[in-house]
């Protein structure tokens, strides 16, 4: 019972990452019909927004300390971050400590911009081209983005911790009257889960309570006719791309304390996010979110020891297995719409 609860909790936050990535992807892939192999790269860029932001905050003035020598026998450098110099050591340190959440200030505008540029400069020319061409061009773009990040930040993961007050974990078990340590759950993961709910809610309500979603769907089905009705569909597509990139970006930025970002993390998530979107059903936002959480939880279940004892290696294949079963029993995934990317 407690292990089950524990794995559901685990699944929820893994699921929130999947759901957020899939949400962004489904805006582009399920709604605009562009097979965007660069989506993982957008997630990765978001992460590196957090890295960059915390580096910016830690920009320091350098003083040489002659009394201490480094390994080569040169005087060591003593660094004082400018923020500490400006805001005083305490506030300064606090700001640096909060770098990850604060980095959203950078990530959101930056990722929207990236989305705009990407759509205007590249994707725009590919709406009418075959999906295969879209794959190739976005894959090329993903590699290029990735390599640029690698050239700047290296290939090694870069630790990007959460603010101090979110360190450690909360003991749910204790709160529910069980023994200590039965169900513990890190604070930052709770933050991430709540954050994902907020983002998902915001995107949903935007698309639900405005005609925006309908217009974009119509535009995907038939751009020409929507144009005939006086709607500048290009602009809306660009805007949609911006939102999608921002969703991917914030998902990435907030994810950094969970796993240190590296340049190829996007590729690691890429395949999975496509699977999630398709299992959710093409063109369905709720489907993508549902599939994200579902696969996250199932993956957590599959990693439980007694299950692994029964079916060795199940945790390696669970996602794919579930995807296959769902796609074979439900032709269009969980909640897919008819006719979207079926030919």
């Amino acid at each position, binding site marked *: 019972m407690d292990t089950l609860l524990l794995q559901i909790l685990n699944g929820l936050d893994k699921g929130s990452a999947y759901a957020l990535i899939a949400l962004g992807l489904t805006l582009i892939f399920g709604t605009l019909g562009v097979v965007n192999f660069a989506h993982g790269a957008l997630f990765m860029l978001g992460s590196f927004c957090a890295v960059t932001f915390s580096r910016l905050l830690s920009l320091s003035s350098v003083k040489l300390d002659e009394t201490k020598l480094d390994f080569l026998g040169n005087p060591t450098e003593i660094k004082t971050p400018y923020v500490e110099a400006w805001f005083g050591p305490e506030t300064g340190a606090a700001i640096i400590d909060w770098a990850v959440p604060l980095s959203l200030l950078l990530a959101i505008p930056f990722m929207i911009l990236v989305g705009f540029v990407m759509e205007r400069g590249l994707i725009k*020319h590919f709406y009418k081209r*075959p999906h295969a061409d879209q794959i190739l061009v976005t894959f090329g*773009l993903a590699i290029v983005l990735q390599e640029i990040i690698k050239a700047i930040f290296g290939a090694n993961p870069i630790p990007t911790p959460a603010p101090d007050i979110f360190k450690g974990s909360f003991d749910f078990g204790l709160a529910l009257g069980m023994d200590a340590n039965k169900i513990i759950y890190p604070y930052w993961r709770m933050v991430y889960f709540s954050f994902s709910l907020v983002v998902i809610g915001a995107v949903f309500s935007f698309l639900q309570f405005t005609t925006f979603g309908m217009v974009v769907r119509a535009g995907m089905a038939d751009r020409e006719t929507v144009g005939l009705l006086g709607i500048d569909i290009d602009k809306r597509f660009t805007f949609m791309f911006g939102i999608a990139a921002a969703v991917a970006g914030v998902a990435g930025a907030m994810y950094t304390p969970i796993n240190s970002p590296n340049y190829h993390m996007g590729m690691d998530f890429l395949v999975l996010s496509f699977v999630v979107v398709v299992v959710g059903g093409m063109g369905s936002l709720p489907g993508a979110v549902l599939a994200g959480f579902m696969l996250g939880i199932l993956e957590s279940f599959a990693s439980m020891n007694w299950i692994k004892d029964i079916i060795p290696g199940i945790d*390696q294949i669970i996602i794919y297995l579930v995807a296959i079963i769902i796609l074979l029993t439900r*032709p269009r995934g969980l909640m897919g719409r008819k006719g979207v990317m079926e030919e």
Partner: protein
Amino acid sequence: MLGLNKKDTKFLLIVIALTMLTPFLTQPFAENSGLAQFNAGYPDLMQRFAIYGIFAIGFNILFGLTGYLSFGHAAFLGVGSYSAVWMMKLLTVNVIPGIILAIVVSGLFALVIGYVSLRRSGIYFSILTLALAQMSFNLAYSVLTPITNGETGLQLALDDPRILMAKNTSGSLPTTNLFGLSMNSSAKWEVLGHVFTFNVGYYFCGVIAVIAFYISLRIFRSPFGLMLRAVKTNQTRMSYTGLNARPYTLAAFVISGMYAGLAGGLLASMDPLAGAERMQWTASGEVVIMTILGGAGTLMGPVLGAGFIKYFENIFSKINDTVLHGWFNFLPDGLENLLVTLIHPFVGKGWHLTLGALFMLVVIFLPGGLMEGGQRITKWIKNKRSGGGDPNSNKTHAPKPTPHVAE
């Protein structure tokens, strides 16, 4: 000839000539020139051109004709490799049984996977193939280690049974061969500072590649090929015309799976190792990209795409700063360093960057892939020769007739 019309016969002859002359074509630079770095005429790479060419040709039979985009084709390549290596461990290092087993096993595997995934179309099909292949990969990497030797990959060992062969006492492994003709034996020919290598393994692969190409040519021109193209454009009309699309697509899937298995078997025959990475989604993605890059649905395109990618992987990744300095050391130091700094990010460890950028450039500017580039050049030359026709000379009020498929 061979059931082909004149034009296709010519086409096939050109392909044969190109295959046979590869050791020359890939070795354009003299051994001592700075550009020797760009030579690709060594056995391993030439073999890879041929083998990945086969892989891509087969993939194109499915994707180019039916439009079904499989994202799991590497699984068949991997299965082919494993089968071939097992054959070499158990029976003999003669490559023939291994290759036959590779084709058969991957064909059966494709039959199963195809049967399951072809129940869906479009992106749903792609994800099904992806999922099935990733499952195979993950299992091969871990749980199936007794069969696949996991991450390290399956290799020959001294104590393998090899029951069709005499007991090995030499303390070293036998080399793969074709009835005694060793795959890694080569003849070298030095002339005018060029060194040309004629390798048994390459010619073996080359001949098989030509046969594979010929078969694919026949398929493209056959009623079966026509049906596959019909599947791609309108399945509804197809079924109301009395045709059952499923067996056609399944046959195409199995055939292309067997091509992949053949490629896998050949890889193992050239170098007896079968690694699980061969089955990973990136490997499946690679053949997709080879095909699109070269020109999906064209006959030669996928082969070109395969060559292009393998060339970059093997040649560009090996260009390091020392090599760069070697090229430019005739320049003044400042300029030399500047050039090296400018080129540095694109070669060696940056070869991915170049590849990614080239992918983008090719699809943006050559929507039909490299083949379109070729066609444009030919057209341009023709135009030039005919004195450049007036572009507005076409005054007919009718759409242009389409050229025959897959030139």
